[in-house]
């Protein structure tokens, strides 16, 4: 009840605040009241969030949302993640983060002429997200959700469903929140663009919006790459980007905002691209809404492993409406003002083959790539809409187009650094550009000689090296003169490094399989691999058996141990383990060990026989043995669901034949026996155990029976673990992470150029 009331208050305060903000442009003295209601809305959101978190931590499973996404076995750390694991909670997180960011926006826009309308639209967005929550409510009780089942009011399940083991990793507390902050920041350029259009500020809004754009792009980019790192470190397929629709939908807004940063810079310097900037300023947020719609409406359904299930018609329509209404708003505003903008435009200083020309070209390329990603991601949904047979696109399309565009982009980037603003002259460019150009050419030739023979990789690497060296060159020149300017160069440097790392690790990785018994050593890629044991961890939890497996990787004089994880959980009825890789990071490559299977080798003599096939008993090879018949008895044994098999064996030694019938309890699902049902073959002093029936799916008569043998009276030898894993070498993958860090740092440094003290162009 309490939680629901808070949510209603959020919606109410949000609506009032929005209306008053709209009115406050003409009546500045009511701005304070609008702010007040904004603070009340934020306080209610904080209250609702604390209330949800408290209930999660106290395991109040009577709330449907808490029952679905948490359990008593979840470590407190992951209970926090339960907050935003599902639709309802993630809407709450989104609204909360939006409202807090808005507090900073209020301060930043104080007494600025865009203040009223920016805050009006901003609060409208928060209001809308909160409004959706009324229909997808995190505070709904189980008896309300399942009201068709006549649950009594007050029923409290004893435990929740818990979180998927594969998500129980510290990254779940890092990646989603950062991503949400990034998404939320995209709202700021949107609302400012609308406000600027209304107030007919076609020039100065750029200065105001730039710092927000830089922060947003930096944090969103960081959030996206952290997701990639999480996938690499945990999921075991050795990659960090799969062009999955949910991944793509986070990348698209980022590409638009980065394009906007560059076109905004062009406007600052030359006065051009005024209309473009209004368009790009709104598109990033619109694609955030598109991403939200794609992933939460269920439209992608079967085509993405990430997407949520259908949330019901109401929420579907609300999300669709969200996207359409805000898009229309932006489009209509731009169209209304287009003539006015054209009148305002001074004779533009935009020159061809100039610095601004290159930046614009680069932005166009980025947008073109974004459009490819949009088309590919929407394809399954759109195709279905047009009655085409359902199909998924080949993700190599993205790699193909992406590589071509990135190649051109890198060359333009490097070249543009030596160009001048508002000047078509290329006079001294070729002198200055010759150094990075020649060095990158030389390095590429070296790479060719060393083994990189693929022409597309070579071209791509050449362009990345050129961009890297050009940016490094300008960066060093500016380091002393103008340290505040180096942000952009650091980011471009980061992107070049990231691309080189992606080419190296993606194009030149090598892989092999290995299967080791305990303490066994085998070699691969010049290293010795030894399986040295396993250790159970997190023993305080009864819903799991989690093991660290130790694999030693050694070369003469150097030993390292990796710890892949094999995690048995009741989440899937202990059927098969969840697997995590072990990684040995070196500078020039990662050695990536990905567990595939764990088995037990029983260290006992073993024989596989088809029916009527004759074999020799391993303990005494002179004894021949044949499976004469195999019969299943109908009644299950002792209510445990197992079936009794009676196997009649014919044995022969020195010409004398004998028949023995052995009894085994077999699990009818796994076709495995057990270690209690040893039968003695009396005349020989040998015990036999039918451990497994390996059914041949195509021809039942070809099924094999697996027997183990031991001497009568002797105990079973201890079984030993056998560990199967893939080994992959990922060359220079760490450049991907280093490049990411550099890119993000660059954004933050660039930010400092726009802090209050330096922002001279104000109204």
């Amino acid at each position, binding site marked *: 009840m309490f939680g629901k009331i808070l949510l209603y208050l959020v919606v109410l305060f949000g609506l009032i605040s929005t209306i008053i903000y709209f009115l406050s442009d003409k009546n500045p003295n009511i701005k304070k009241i609008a702010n007040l209601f904004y603070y009340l809305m934020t306080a209610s959101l904080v209250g609702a969030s604390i209330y949800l978190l408290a209930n999660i931590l106290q395991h109040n499973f009577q709330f449907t949302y808490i029952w679905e996404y948490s359990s008593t076995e979840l470590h407190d750390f992951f209970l926090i993640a339960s907050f935003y694991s599902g639709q309802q909670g993630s809407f709450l997180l989104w609204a909360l983060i939006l409202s807090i960011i808005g507090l900073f926006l209020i301060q930043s826009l104080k007494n600025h002429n865009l203040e009223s309308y920016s805050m009006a639209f901003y609060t409208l967005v928060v209001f809308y997200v909160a409004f959706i929550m009324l229909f997808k409510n995190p505070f709904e009780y189980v008896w309300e959700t399942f009201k068709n089942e006549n649950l009594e009011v007050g029923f409290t399940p004893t435990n929740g469903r818990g979180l998927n083991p594969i998500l129980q990793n510290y990254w779940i507390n890092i990646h989603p929140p950062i991503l949400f902050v990034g998404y939320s920041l995209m709202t700021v350029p949107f609302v400012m663009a609308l406000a600027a259009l209304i107030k007919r500020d076609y020039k100065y809004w750029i200065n105001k919006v730039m710092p927000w754009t830089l922060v947003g792009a930096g944090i969103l980019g960081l959030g996206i790459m952290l997701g990639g790192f999480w996938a690499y470190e945990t999921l075991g397929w050795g990659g960090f980007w799969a062009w999955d629709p949910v991944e793509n939908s986070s990348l698209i807004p980022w590409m638009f905002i980065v394009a906007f940063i560059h076109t905004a810079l062009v406007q600052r310097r030359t006065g051009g691209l005024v209309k473009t900037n209004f368009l790009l300023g709104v598109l990033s947020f619109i694609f955030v809404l598109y991403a939200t719609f794609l992933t939460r409406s269920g439209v992608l359904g079967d085509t993405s492993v990430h997407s949520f299930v259908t949330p019901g018609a109401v929420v579907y329509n609300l999300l669709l409406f969200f996207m359409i209404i805000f898009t229309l708003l932006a489009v209509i505003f731009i169209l209304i003002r287009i003539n006015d903008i054209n009148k305002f435009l001074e004779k533009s200083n935009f020159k061809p083959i100039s610095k601004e020309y290159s930046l614009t070209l680069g932005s166009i390329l980025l947008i073109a790539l974004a459009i490819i990603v949009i088309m590919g991601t929407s394809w399954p949904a759109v195709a279905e809409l047009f009655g085409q047979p359902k199909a998924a696109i080949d993700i190599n399309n993205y790699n193909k187009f992406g590589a071509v565009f990135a190649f051109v982009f890198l060359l333009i980037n490097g070249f543009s650094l030596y160009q001048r603003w508002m000047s078509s002259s290329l006079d001294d460019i070729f002198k200055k550009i010759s150094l990075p150009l020649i060095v990158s050419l030389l390095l590429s030739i070296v790479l060719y000689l060393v083994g990189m023979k693929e022409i597309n990789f070579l071209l791509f690497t050449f362009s990345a090296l050129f961009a890297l060296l050009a940016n490094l060159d300008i960066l060093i020149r500016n380091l002393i003169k103008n340290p505040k300017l180096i942000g952009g160069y650091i980011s471009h440097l980061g992107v070049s490094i990231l691309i080189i790392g992606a080419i190296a690790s993606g194009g030149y990785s090598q892989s092999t399989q290995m299967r080791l018994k305990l303490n066994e050593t085998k070699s691969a890629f010049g290293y010795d691999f030894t399986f040295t044991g396993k250790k159970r961890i997190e023993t305080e939890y009864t819903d799991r058996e989690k093991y660290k497996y130790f694999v030693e990787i050694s070369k003469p004089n150097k030993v390292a141990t990796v710890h892949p994880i094999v995690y048995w959980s009741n989440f899937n009825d202990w059927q098969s383990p969840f697997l995590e890789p072990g990684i040995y990071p070196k500078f020039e490559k990662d050695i990536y060990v990905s567990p595939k299977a764990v088995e037990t080798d029983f260290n006992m003599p073993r024989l596989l026989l088809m029916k009527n096939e004759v074999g020799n008993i391993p303990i005494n090879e002179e004894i021949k043995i044949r499976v004469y018949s195999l019969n299943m008895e109908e009644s299950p044994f002792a209510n445990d669901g197992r079936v009794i098999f009676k196997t009649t064996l014919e044995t022969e030694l020195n010409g004398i034949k004998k028949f023995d019938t052995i009894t085994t309890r077999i699990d009818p699902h796994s*076709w495995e026996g057990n270690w209690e049902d040893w039968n003695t073959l009396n005349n020989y002093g040998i015990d036999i155990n039918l451990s497994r029936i390996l059914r041949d799916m195509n021809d039942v008569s070809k099924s094999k029976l697996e027997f183990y043998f031991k001497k009568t009276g002797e105990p079973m030898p201890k079984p030993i673990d056998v560990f199967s894993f893939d080994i992959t070498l990922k060359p220079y993958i760490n450049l991907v992470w280093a490049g990411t860090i550099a890119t993000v740092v660059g954004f933050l440094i660039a930010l400092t150029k726009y802090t209050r003290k330096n922002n001279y162009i104000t109204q």
Partner: protein
Amino acid sequence: MKIKYIIGIIIGVIFVVIALLSFNTTKIEYADFNKAKSINKTFQVIGSWDKTKPYEYDSENNLFKFYMIDEHGNSSYVVSKGGKPNNFDVAPMVVIKGKYEGEEFHATEILTKCPSKYEGQFDELKGQTLYNKN
């Protein structure tokens, strides 16, 4: 002014057409097992794992074999290179990509849906017991 917009639009249209053609010629259709068996092409098939039939992981050859029932109720034997995918047991739905070789569907990829996105089923509300490994 006008001419630059016209050129821009033409280039844009050409670009979109190229992209669409590229997507269209490389797309992988969804099909059921009957269709996939009759045409020798790579398809994606949606369905669920047949729990009444056994599955096995062949560690010597790194092959995972199981039975699957598609949306129209057809059953097929599926062989896939690699281990058992992480959420296989709890995923109500599974998408495989590959083509038929004889009577076996050779899958190059198995996609299982992430179960954390599923909303709770009513039956699980009551009778929540901690499972024991036998």
